[in-house]
């Protein structure tokens, strides 16, 4: 059953079009990879689906209800309760310890401090980073930081997890460990995942791959005549 859907989503930054009519369905428990070269609009699509950005045209629906027309406050609440978000880096609050970072969404939801900490420690344990629970992000390795960020994204047991190049800043092995955790936990909890990546190897973790090119879904498979402007990162 379709949980989250984009219908003809259009989004431009000033005169620069980022999305030119994208349609995409994400089923319950499905892991969808959104791939494509740099600047193809994949991050923008993720932001529109997650209700962070409002599309210029088209619709975004969550369980059949249009969310692109909701107020910022309502979409904020949706993101807080039903969605989890994981970025490439830099999402942890530098001054808070790992456990406090993970507990943050629960505290926002009004959970008591002790209870929130207990839940946070549980998630850090599941991600094998319980040993850095009282360490600040600056003293952690990139992989530990990203696992803490994953714990924070999952601590509210969201229905959809949005991951934007979640391994982009990590080495191969560390990135793989994070992804393996992500996929395993998402499957356990039956959480849908929208995974944005430019790497085929990362996209292979998904059930399905959707390729974007110049702001539209590439339906021809792969071929689009254009000079090499490949995946420079």
């Amino acid at each position: 059953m379709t949980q989250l859907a984009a219908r003809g989503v259009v989004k431009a930054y000033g005169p620069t079009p980022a999305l030119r009519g994208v349609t995409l369905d994400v089923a319950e428990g499905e892991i969808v990879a959104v791939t494509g070269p740099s600047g193809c609009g994949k991050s923008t699509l993720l932001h529109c689906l997650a209700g962070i950005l409002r599309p210029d045209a088209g619709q975004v629906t969550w369980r059949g209800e249009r969310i692109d027309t909701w107020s910022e406050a309502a979409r904020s609440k949706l993101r807080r309760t039903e969605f989890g978000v994981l970025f490439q880096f830099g999402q942890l609050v530098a001054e808070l310890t790992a456990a406090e970072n993970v507990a943050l969404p629960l505290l926002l939801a009004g959970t008591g401090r002790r209870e929130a900490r207990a839940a946070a420690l549980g998630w850090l344990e599941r991600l094998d980073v319980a040993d850095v629970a009282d360490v600040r992000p600056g003293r952690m390795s990139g992989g530990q930081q990203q696992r803490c960020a994953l714990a924070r994204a999952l601590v509210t047991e969201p229905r959809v997890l949005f991951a934007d190049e979640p391994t982009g800043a990590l080495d191969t092995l560390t990135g793989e460990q994070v992804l393996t955790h992500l996929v395993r936990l998402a499957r356990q909890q039956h959480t849908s995942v929208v995974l944005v990546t430019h790497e085929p190897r990362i996209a292979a973790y998904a059930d399905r791959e959707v390729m974007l090119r110049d702001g539209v879904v590439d339906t021809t498979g792969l071929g689009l005549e254009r000079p090499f402007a490949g995946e420079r990162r």
Partner: protein
Amino acid sequence: MSTTHVLLGLLAAGNRHGYDLKRAHDTRLPRARPLAFGQVYATLGRLARDGLVVATGQERESGPDRTAYALTGRGREELDAWLAAVEPPAPYVTSTLFAKVVVALLVADVDTARAYLVAQARAHTDRLRELTAIKTAPTATLDDVVAADYAIVHLDADLRWLRTTLDRVADWHREVHP
């Protein structure tokens, strides 16, 4: 191929008979082509002839005769020499994949070459996903993971090449057919 040296390596851990060796080979190299019994015995015979292994005796347990083999000193030396030798990093590109695209461009048009590349990329992507699933399965052992990784990074390299070549195929065709 290195089957000879894999068998020598397996014997270095202790004496084994042919059937045992085949099973150990298939477990340790899960993504490799399974070894045939005939090949095991033929290889062992050759190794014994060259004095690299020696038959240590026979045991009979509810089945045919089984000859156990042991590594000799010379066998050990050969194994060490092989392990110490660096493999030359593929000096020539000999992939069928590459040859096919070149030939497709020579005998057909851009669209044929592109259709082939797209189909091949899809097949690669599917295989990549299969291997990733095997690797991330909760029951996967480290043997499975390491073997899958080896295949995955090679497929990944092929895929990157396929996608880049797709973007270059028109220019390339113009170069082949000026």
